[in-house]
Every structure is written in structure tokens, then in C-alpha cells.
């Protein structure tokens, strides 16, 4: 029965890891989206120092997950988010409300996209 249990166990392990990865990425991106919304709120209240501090916190948290994220996701998707972070930081330092709001909206959309690429859905599979 070893001939059955080893491959079946490995398949189950791969499936479980894949599902866990999808769940983990969704959890992490939701967390960053929530933090970005707080950052957006601070910017709308013209509290730029608070917005900058919150954006830095989100970026540091994001940066700490990059090693694992790069081992499971397409690097181009992550690089896109990285460049959006850089753009948001630059706009935040210029205190441009409209551009900053737009940049954060794009960043949140990119986070949704990252989670979407790892989720189990018929759309993705087909």
C-alpha cells in the first residue's frame, strides 16, 4: 500500500499547501488594504505626517513578506505593487491629495489582484 499512500499523501500535501497559500495571501493583502484605507483617511484629513507614517508601516510589513511571496507568485505582479508603493511615497511627500488617493486606489486594486491570482476559482482554473 506504500505505492498508494506516498503519492496520495504527497498530492494531499501539495493541495493543502496550495489552499493554505491562497488563504494566507488573501489574509495578508486584506490586512494591507485595511492599512492603506487608514492611510487614505489620514491624507483626506490633510494629516500628511500621519499618512506618511502609516504608508511606511504598510510598506515595511509588505517588505517583510516579500521573500515568501516571491517564492510563490509571479515576480512581475509583485514588482508592479512595489512600483506603486514607490509612487505613493513620492506623491505623499508632495502632499498631493488627488494623486495620492488615485495611487492608493491602484495599490489596493493590485493587492486584490495578488490575492485573486492565488484563490481557488473556476475563473482562474479555466
Amino acid at each position: 500500500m506504500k505505492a498508494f499512500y506516498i503519492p496520495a499523501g504527497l498530492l494531499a500535501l501539495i493541495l493543502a499547501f496550495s489552499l493554505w497559500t491562497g488563504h494566507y495571501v488573501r489574509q495578508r493583502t486584506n490586512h494591507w488594504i485595511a492599512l492603506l484605507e487608514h492611510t487614505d483617511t489620514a491624507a483626506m484629513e490633510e494629516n500628511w505626517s500621519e499618512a506618511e507614517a502609516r504608508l511606511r508601516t504598510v510598506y515595511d510589513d509588505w517588505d517583510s513578506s516579500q521573500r515568501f511571496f516571491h517564492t510563490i507568485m509571479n515576480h512581475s505582479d509583485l514588482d508592479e505593487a512595489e512600483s506603486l508603493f514607490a509612487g505613493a511615497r513620492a506623491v505623499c511627500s508632495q502632499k498631493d491629495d488627488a494623486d495620492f488617493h488615485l495611487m492608493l486606489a491602484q495599490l489596493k486594486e493590485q493587492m486584490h489582484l495578488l490575492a485573486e491570482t492565488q484563490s481557488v476559482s473556476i475563473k482562474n482554473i479555466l
Partner: protein
Amino acid sequence: MTTAFFRTVILYFILMVGLRLMGKRQIGELEPSELVLTLIISDLAAVPMQDFGIPLVNGLFPIITLLCLSMLLSFFSLKSIRFRGLVCGHPTVIVREGKVLQQNMARNRFTVDELFEQLRCQGYSDLSAVKYAILETSGQVSILAYTKDSPVTPQTLNYDVQDDVTLPVLLINDGHVLSRNLEGSGYDQNWLDKQLKSRRLTSPRQVFLMTVDEAGAVVCVAKEEAA
């Protein structure tokens, strides 16, 4: 990554079904499942190798998934005859007593040209000399001739011949002594040294190949620089 997992499973079975539907003549010497495995794994391995933007696990996980699926198919094929028939197909008789079974040929998309090519390859020029031709699951054709057209053997002539077929065991392979084979054949290092000495060799490193059969006959080929 789950997407990659499910995509791999789906692609594997689609290719498997496709190859089974194509018939045996497309397969050659590989079983359908082996061919599918070879086709996909070679491509899967190449993509992450070439595109550094794709994580390695995205290539590794599908490959491991495929290997596991293949092992599971082998397991179920071993346990169930019906499953084995589903995965590997069944041998098909395409010539019976010199008569071509056209329906069986068509079902396997096996052409007359291919049949005659196989007949010629196996030394048959005349279809009437063939009692059975069987298209095996591997895509090869086995040909069974009528007894009158079969090669003569000592048994058919009622000759009593001594059986002198023995299995040679490799003792030295390119200068390396295979100790397990040496002991398994009932010999030891002293015997080996004597054999070398009798051939004016001082070390097993000078030997390219040495075998001994069940009757004790030794074949020794020295390396060219030592010869």
C-alpha cells in the same frame, strides 16, 4: 498555486484521454500515461528554467503532482484489470489466419502501410504466412507465424541438445570490482587475484570488463592502455 495544481491535473487527464483516442499507432514504445508524463514534464521543467519571473515552485509543484498522479495510475492499474484496460488499452488482433481485420485496424487508426512495414521489419513478406498479428498496447505489432513457417528448432526436429545457456555475472566494470556480485557468485578476492595474475594483470583497475557465468567460464577484457 492551487490554480497550477488543478490546471496540471486537468491537463494531464485531457492529454491522457486525447492520446487514448488517437489510437496506439501514435504512441510508439511508450504507454499513453508515460508519454503524457514525458511530454508535460519536459515543458514544465523548461518554463521556470527560462523565465526567472516565475517562481520555481510553480514548476516544481506541477511536476511532483504529475509524478504522483502517474504513480497512482500505476497502482490502480496493478490492482484493477478494468482500470488497466482503461488507461493502457487492450491488445488488438489485426490479422487472423492471414486475413486483415479491417475494423480493428480502423478502430486503432492503423494503416495498411504501417502493417506491412511492421511485417517487413519482422521478416515477413507475405501476409498469408502470418497466423496472428497483434497490435500491442505499446503500439508494437507482435507477429505469430504458422507452425509450418516458423523457424526450425532442435525441439521440432526431436534433437536432444545440452542446455549451455548460462547467465554471466559482471565482476569488474571499468576497473571497479563489484564485490556483491563476486560474493554472490561464490568467489572471493583471492580467486579474483589469481584470475588477474593468470592474465598478466596486476590490478582490477587494468580490467575494462570481467564476467563469470554459472559454469565458471571467465571472460576478461583488459583496458586498452594495459593490454
